[in-house]
């Protein structure tokens, strides 16, 4: 039986809320031993509710009040036996806690330290108070998203999960580098820059054409028809993207509209784009006759890219995810048996990801302090009483 890729790596997870815990969930599921450290003094806000069960799968959870001198000394001992440490406090907080990179690397010279904040750890706005939902506006990400000529969309849970995956990716890159050079790293990560880096089309369009990109709704600059069409039933929709002339002809055949396929007006993407209001109305006449999943099946059989626009509950019940083995049924702490999410990749013929239920605060104190650090049980008990292991 082969080991998971990150077998033998230990990650000290000082992060909280969404982005950092998402990163360490990926690392833990791929074989790293992730020790989440938190304190009842200032609980992780995401501890509330089901979300915690997803964000913290596969981890160990130790309690530690690092704002006390003894707690700070203990966390340094943990750093000394870890390969990676990750934090996502506002810029400057970890230094004020006495755990800046200059301190951390004394405890462990080849440590890989990931520090993620809203706008990064340098520059005139590094101390700006940020939430992911606000950064989606600051970074231009929302400026190209939404209904044309209406006020900008708000929300969409995007920044934190994106950054979570990117932090896991960066960690894997740094581990490869360390494997060859023996060197650790301090990684200054900016959530804002992660989002701005994901809209290069609009940034280059502005430079090439002096054009400030506006939201296009569900339409595309080039492909047409390209939209989301009402199906039978309330709030049921199917997304259809015609990306070639051949797909257009197939769509016309499916809708039993050979007249449209034969019309030279619609023979190319540019012509279809010029008449997309009309074509959208024609397509809606057809989609309204079908349930959304039926429409997808018919369209896919005809070779047209398509799929239903679903809310999260329908995604949860999606046959594709169920049959592809995406969910794992897990006994949760206090929540009974639940189908919890997995990973978006498979190592074909390789080991299965390590997926367990999320821990509760302090669940692994004995392992972390007695087995790992070798502290006497009495000493651990004293620190519990003194609200250091707390």
């Amino acid at each position, binding site marked *: 039986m082969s080991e998971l890729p990150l077998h033998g790596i230990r990650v000290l997870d000082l992060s909280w809320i969404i982005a950092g815990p998402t990163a360490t969930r990926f690392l833990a599921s791929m074989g790293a031993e992730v020790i989440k450290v938190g304190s009842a003094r200032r609980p992780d806000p995401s501890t509330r509710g089901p979300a915690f069960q997803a964000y913290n799968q596969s981890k160990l959870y130790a309690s530690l009040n690092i704002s006390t001198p003894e707690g700070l000394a203990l966390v340094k001992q943990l750093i000394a036996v870890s390969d990676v440490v990750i934090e996502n406090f506002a810029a400057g907080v970890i230094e004020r806690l006495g755990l800046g990179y200059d301190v951390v690397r004394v405890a462990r010279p080849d440590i890989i330290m990931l520090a993620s904040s809203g706008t990064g750890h340098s520059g005139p706005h590094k101390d700006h108070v940020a939430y992911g939902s606000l950064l989606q506006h600051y970074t231009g*990400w929302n400026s190209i998203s939404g209904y044309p000529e209406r006020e900008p969309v708000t929300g969409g849970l995007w920044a934190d999960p994106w950054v979570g995956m990117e932090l896991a990716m960066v960690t894997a890159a740094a581990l490869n580098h360390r494997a060859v050079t023996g060197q650790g790293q301090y990684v200054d990560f900016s959530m804002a820059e992660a989002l701005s880096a994901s809209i290069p089309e609009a940034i280059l369009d502005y430079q090439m054409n002096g054009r400030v990109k506006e939201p296009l709704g569900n339409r595309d600059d080039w492909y047409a028809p390209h939209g989301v069409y009402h199906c039978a039933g309330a709030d049921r929709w199917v997304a259809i993207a015609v990306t070639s002339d051949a797909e257009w002809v197939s769509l016309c055949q499916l809708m039993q509209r050979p007249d449209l396929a034969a019309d030279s007006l619609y023979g190319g993407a540019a012509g279809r784009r010029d008449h997309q209001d009309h074509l959208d109305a024609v397509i809606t006449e057809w989609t309204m006759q079908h349930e959304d999943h039926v429409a997808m099946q018919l369209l896919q059989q005809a070779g047209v890219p398509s799929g239903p626009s*679903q809310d999260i509950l329908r995604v949860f019940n999606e046959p594709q995810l169920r049959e592809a083995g995406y969910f794992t049924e897990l006994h949760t702490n206090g929540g009974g048996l639940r189908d919890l999410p997995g990973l978006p990749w498979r190592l074909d013929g390789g080991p299965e990801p390590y997926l367990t239920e999320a821990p509760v605060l302090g669940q692994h104190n004995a392992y972390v302090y007695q087995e790992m650090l070798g502290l006497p049980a009495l000493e651990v008990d004293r620190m519990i009483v003194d609200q250091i292991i707390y």
Partner: protein
Amino acid sequence: MPDGLLPGVRVLDVGQGISGPYCAKILAQMGAEVIKVEPPEGDSARRMGPFPGDSPHPEKSGLFLATNANKQGITLDLSSSDGAAAFRKLAAGADIVIENPPPDALEGHGLGYESLKNTNPGLVFTSITPFGNRGPYKDFKATDLVLYHMSGHAHGMLGAVKDPDSDPPIRAGGHQAELVGGMAAATATLMALYRKRMTGQGSRIDISSFEAMVTQLISGLANSAYGRPAPPRDLAKVEEAAIGGMVGAIGGILLCNDGYVAISPREDAQWERWLQVMGGPPWATDERYATRDARQRNSPSLWKLLSDWSINHSKHEIARMGQEQRVPCFPVNTVQDLLSDEHLAHRGFFVEMEHPVAGVLRYPGAAYRFSNSQLPLTERPAPMLGEHNREILDSLA
């Protein structure tokens, strides 16, 4: 020359479009030596905009240029025996091969993982498709639009829905689902590369871009697992903010005299400071707005009061005044604002490269800086079609 974190790692990027090439772009900016292998007619992304003057040109696609910087490029006809033989030689010395079929699956040319690993057992072979190689949709076609909607993200984009029966759920701009598929691929690939370093074992990695998008919403999936209903997508009907949602007292956008500002003074202390930013308005002590719960209940009338004030100020002015008072708020920026943003300029976020045909352009850089490694972000602009054929293919002969 900065050598990044992956010096000496050799990558063959056989992908077209966005997801595969974006995965390879990440590895290139981390310092791997990436050879982009294009069919003789070129990567399909060369035909995707933006183009200068909206006039398509295979060397001027903004999307292609951004997604393929810092790679070398060759053309190979993999359906010919010469092309397949050359690819086989390159793959024998590669650490990583990345593909995103269709249209061009390596398997179909006898160049799939099973074949390549015979000569290169440590190879990491990464395949990205819309739904992966499993499940009932494994042969389905999907685009960015389709994946964004199927995965639940469009229902979470809270917009100004006027008529739920005629306003469909809405996608994000750009090609977010393709990028997430590519980033998931880079993440798994780098982990598998690490395993290869430790154990010598190769891997075949299968990526579903759909699952990658779904995995961005694991909190929502967990809510579903606990029997919670899906939140409504009409902003006006949302009573309780899901994580990340800017509704009610959590936050929102205000119209300014030059655009919008996004604010989120959600905690009581933040709210108190926000009132100071507004100069202590007379309604500040009104009990309808005294607590977070009260503000939540009365948010329509509250946002009206805030908007009456904000319309007299600019978005940057409000953002500056708010941040001075430690209130979470930011201007709703356009890409034009970004390119002149002093903070991004100070951090050197945008990088400039000169391309022989497309000219000098500023590209978004990386979201990360490493203390011990410089990233080769401006090593070379995206390759012209077949630019390195002679250099690379001659060395194989």
